[in-house]
């Protein structure tokens, strides 16, 4: 399933959460990552995120799409990052 992860956390945890996110998803722009995961991978990602955030203060959102058929990404301005498999 396709996952878009968006986070808003306290400054001191920004680096930590980015580090976790990058293991599973591709960085798209500040505080946004996305990619194709299995259910199990998604559960592991959530578990790892819980480890680093302070649940009374931080917020992390996941948007889940069953497939990318209905996803259209439009971009204005600079393209900062996108999932790529041929580098």
């Amino acid at each position: 399933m396709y996952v878009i992860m968006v986070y808003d956390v306290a400054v001191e945890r920004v680096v930590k959460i980015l580090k976790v996110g990058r293991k599973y998803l591709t960085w798209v722009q500040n505080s946004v990552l996305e990619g194709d995961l299995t259910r199990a991978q998604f559960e592991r990602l959530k578990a790892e995120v819980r480890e680093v955030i302070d649940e009374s203060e931080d917020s992390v959102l996941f948007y889940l799409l069953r497939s990318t058929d209905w996803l259209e990404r439009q971009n204005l301005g600079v393209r900062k990052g996108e999932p790529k498999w041929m580098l």
Partner: protein
Amino acid sequence: MRRALYLMGGGTLSRKQNTLCLEREGAKRYVPVEQVLEIHVFGEVEFNKRLLEFLSQHEIMVHIYSYHGWYMGTFYPREHNNSGYLLLQQVVHYLDAEKRLDLARRFVFGAIQNLLHVLRYYQRRGKALEDILTALEGQLGRVHSQQGIEQLMQVEGQAREAYYRAFDRILEDPDFEFEERTRRPPRNRMNALLSFGNSLLYTAVLSEIYRTHLDPRIGFLHATNFRRFALNLDVAEVFKPILVDRTVLSLVQKRQIQARHFDEALGGLYLKEEGRRRFLEAWEERLGTTLHHRGLKRHVSYRTLIRLELYKLEKHLLGDREYRPFRTRW
């Protein structure tokens, strides 16, 4: 879903922040390690032992290709699926001449069936292939009476020869005339495409073998020797027609790959970077294409289908169920 990562250009690949990072001209590009199935290296990529350790932990293989796109070798991480019993059975089926011949026949039979299938597909699209189909059916009928591996390989060779004659009639494109099969080096564009596609299929099957209990060094149709993996070559025979040949034919027919995508070198013709990219895109798309599996009653991708084929082979070796090669029905 895990997928293949292709490194076309140069740079340094390293472990960074517990994930993969490609550094090129000072720019860092992170790749989510959890999503990587295998890595294909075409460019001048540098890496170190720390990276290989990390890849081993994540069970990610690295396939290396030369400048001209030839398969050079594989970093095969530590085995994690070990079964002494299956290995023994694999050896028994290799050493017992009858058992080995039986398996080899099944691979050749499956291969020719799928060759026929590809040609019938083009026949339905109005190509005159009647005589070639008859020739192939003849070879198919001879498979089960062959008494040795050598003869069996000859039958397959003759079937393929007849089959390749159909290519010029299907394509009718002077830039992509087939003439005859040439390797090392491929002497024309069609041969270059087929060789490139075949190497990709060999590595794809090898990657799937790694995910089963089978030992890639012991093949049945292709003799086990000191050089390399053999089992992936056997299984690849069954899939070549539907995966490689169809990809090649459709890329040429749709003019996605053209004469300008090739370069002459070492007395042969090779795909240039742009052509290689186009091929790889089409290849990934084909491996990811799903079809309905009657036994499992769900959709599976061709990549998964290769693995299912290996499970069938395991069952055959263990004496649970006789192996019947995959056959397309579209």
